[in-house]
């Protein structure tokens, strides 16, 4: 009887903490696995593990960070080898790439007057539809993609991301920096492929 009540209590607490995070986790899982079926499996497995190890969760600490750590580790051990990841990027080639600068060049080329500044460039940036951004994200190698997602989507601090990924804060910083560069280069390549912009350097 006692057992039963404790069990019920555990379930209720787990439900309160983690069920509201389901959409959030599913979105991240989608971006990790890049396909809905794997994302579903991944989320389900993460919830099962979280429940199994719920006694290790320290009450009062960040529940979202805790279950995301489980999700990330599950992804890394189980799914990373299943799907072909994008090739490692030659980072030196894009270290100095700056999407904002490229866009400014385009604006200047099409409009002889002085570039009008942030609004113009930001407007060009917003012309990308969500699908472009999602596709560009898929082209970012996993280790960089995860760092960017945990920062941009989850809003975690570098310290929190370091703990989730089990790397140093310095590594997080460099992965976020590189991940964003790769993402922007990819967006730029999309724009060029579709002839939305011409390569301003030519």
């Amino acid at each position, binding site marked *: 009887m006692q057992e039963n009540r404790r069990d019920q209590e555990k*379930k209720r607490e*787990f*439900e309160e903490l983690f*069920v509201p995070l*389901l*959409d*959030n*986790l*599913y*979105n*991240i899982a*989608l*971006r990790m696995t890049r396909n*809905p079926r794997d994302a*579903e499996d991944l*989320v*389900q497995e993460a*919830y*099962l593990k979280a*429940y199994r190890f719920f006694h290790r969760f320290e009450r009062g600490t960040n529940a979202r960070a805790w279950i995301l750590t489980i999700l990330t580790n599950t992804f890394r051990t189980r799914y990373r080898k299943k799907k072909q990841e994008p090739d490692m990027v030659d980072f030196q080639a894009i270290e100095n790439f*700056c*999407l*904002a600068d490229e*866009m*400014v060049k385009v604006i200047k080329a099409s409009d002889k007057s002085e570039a009008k*500044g*942030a609004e113009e*460039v*930001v407007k060009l*940036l*917003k012309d*990308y539809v*969500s*699908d472009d*951004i*999602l596709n560009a*994200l898929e082209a970012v190698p996993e280790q960089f993609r995860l760092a*960017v*997602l945990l*920062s*941009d*989507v989850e*809003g975690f*601090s*570098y310290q929190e991301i370091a703990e989730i990924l089990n790397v140093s804060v310095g590594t997080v*910083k460099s992965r*976020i*920096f590189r991940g*964003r560069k790769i*993402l*922007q280069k990819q967006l730029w390549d999309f724009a060029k492929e579709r002839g939305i912009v011409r390569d301003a350097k030519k």
Partner: protein
Amino acid sequence: MTCREAVDKLHEYIDSELDSATTEKIKKHLDLCRLCCNQFEFEKTMKELVHKCCERAKAPDVLKKKIADTLNL
């Protein structure tokens, strides 16, 4: 603060990783420097766009049900 110093901290700035003194210094620089201001604005927008497009999906009902069933919630 020079442009170089500001841009070096761009990502930490938009990720709110800097102490308040450094944040203030950058804000002051951005008030004065249109080029840097544009670049910071751009990166901030990029971050917001990534956020926005990664919260659109809803977990399928079947997944909700599967989890509830396996955990017997």
